[in-house]
C-alpha cells in the first residue's frame, strides 16, 4: 500500500490526467444515459470536481481541495493557473477577431459595471451584517469582486485579518456559484452567443468561475468570456483600494 501511494505521489501529474479522464468518462456516460444529454457532460464533470474538492477539504482540512490528499497532489499542477491560462489561450484559435473588435467597447463597459455592481452589493450585505467602518466595508465589497481583489484591497488599506478572510471566502463562494449557476440560468438570460458571453465575462470577472461556467454551458463561448474576465481582477485591484475606498471613507 505504502509503495503504491508513494508511486502515485511521485507521478502526481500523470495520475491526475488519468483520474480526470475517468471522471470525465463517467460524467459523459451519466449525461447520456441518465439525463439524455440534457445536462452537459462537462457540467456534471465540473460538479463532480467540486464534490471531490469538498471531500478533500473535509478529509485534510486543507485549502486545495482534493490536491491536499497526497496521492492526488498532481491536481494542483493540472488545475493550477498555468495550465488553466495556457489552455484558455489555446481556445482563442476558434474565436473571431472581427467579433471581438466589434464588441471591444462593450467589454470595457461591462467590466466597470461588473466591478461597481459586485462592490455595491458586497457593501450592502456587509452593512446588513453590522459592519460600519469604511475599511471592512471596502474589503468585503472587494471580496465580492474576486477572491484576489478582496485580500489585495484588504491588506492595502489595512483591514483586520478576519475581514480579509471573510472577503476571500466571499470570492470563493462567488466563483463556485458562477460555476454552478451559469449553465442553469444561461437559457433565461440569453447567454448563447459571443456577444453576451463577452458581457458575461466582464460582469462576473472571476476567471475560474467564468471559465468553468461557460465550459459547462457551451465551450464555444469560452474564449469570448475569458477575454474580458482576464481584465477584471487587475482592474478591481486598481479601483477598490483607491477610488472606491475613498468613496466609502467619504460616506462612512
Amino acid at each position, binding site marked *: 500500500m505504502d509503495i503504491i501511494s508513494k508511486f502515485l505521489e511521485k507521478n502526481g501529474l500523470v495520475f491526475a490526467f488519468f483520474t480526470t479522464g475517468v471522471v470525465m468518462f463517467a460524467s459523459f456516460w451519466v449525461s447520456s444515459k441518465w439525463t439524455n444529454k440534457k445536462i452537459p457532460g462537462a457540467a456534471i464533470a465540473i460538479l463532480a470536481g467540486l464534490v471531490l474538492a469538498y471531500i478533500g477539504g473535509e478529509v485534510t482540512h486543507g485549502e486545495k481541495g482534493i490536491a491536499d490528499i497526497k496521492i492526488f497532489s498532481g491536481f494542483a499542477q493540472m488545475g493550477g493557473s498555468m495550465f488553466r491560462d495556457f489552455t484558455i489561450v489555446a481556445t482563442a484559435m476558434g474565436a473571431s477577431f472581427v467579433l471581438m473588435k466589434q464588441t471591444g467597447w462593450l467589454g470595457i463597459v461591462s467590466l466597470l459595471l461588473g466591478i461597481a455592481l459586485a462592490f455595491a452589493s458586497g457593501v450592502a450585505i456587509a452593512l446588513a451584517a453590522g459592519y460600519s467602518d469604511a475599511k471592512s466595508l471596502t474589503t468585503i465589497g472587494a471580496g465580492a469582486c474576486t477572491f484576489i481583489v478582496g485580500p489585495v484591497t484588504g491588506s492595502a488599506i489595512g483591514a483586520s485579518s478576519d475581514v480579509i478572510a471573510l472577503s476571500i471566502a466571499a470570492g470563493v463562494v462567488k466563483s463556485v456559484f458562477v460555476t454552478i449557476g451559469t449553465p442553469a440560468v444561461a437559457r433565461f438570460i440569453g447567454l448563447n452567443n459571443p456577444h453576451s458571453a463577452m458581457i458575461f465575462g466582464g460582469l462576473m470577472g472571476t476567471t475560474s468561475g467564468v471559465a468553468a461556467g461557460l465550459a459547462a454551458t457551451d465551450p464555444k463561448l*469560452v474564449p469570448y468570456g475569458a477575454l474580458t474576465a482576464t481584465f477584471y481582477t487587475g482592474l478591481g485591484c486598481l479601483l477598490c483600494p483607491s477610488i472606491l475606498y475613498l468613496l466609502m471613507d467619504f460616506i462612512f
Partner: protein
Amino acid sequence: MTIYGVALLAGCYLAGQILGELLGESMGIEANVGGVGFAMLLLIFLHDFSSKKAPLATETERGITFWSNMYIPVIVAMSATQNVRIALSSGWVALLAGIVPVLVCFAAIPVLAAFSKNKKAA
C-alpha cells in the same frame, strides 16, 4: 511538426502574460492585468495573419488544438482544487456576499445585451 504549434502557443502565452505583469506593475498593483487577454489576441492575430500569407500546416495546428481540447479536463481538475469547504462553511455573510453580486450581474446581462444591440442598430 506538432511542437511548432505548441511553441507558437507558448510564445503567445508568455508574451501576453509578461505584458499583463508589466501593465500591473506600471499601475502599481500586485496583479496581472489582462495577460490572458493579450495572449489570446496575439494568437488570433498571428493565426489570422498566417492564414492569408502561409497557412499553418495541419500538424502545427494540432499542437494548438490539442491544448484547446484539454481545456475542459483542466477546468475539472481546477474545480477539484477549489476551497469548497470554506465556501460552504464560512457563514451567511460570505455566502450572501458571494451569491448576491452574481444574481445582480446575471440580471444585468440581458439589459446590457439589449442596450448594445439597439446602439448597433442605430
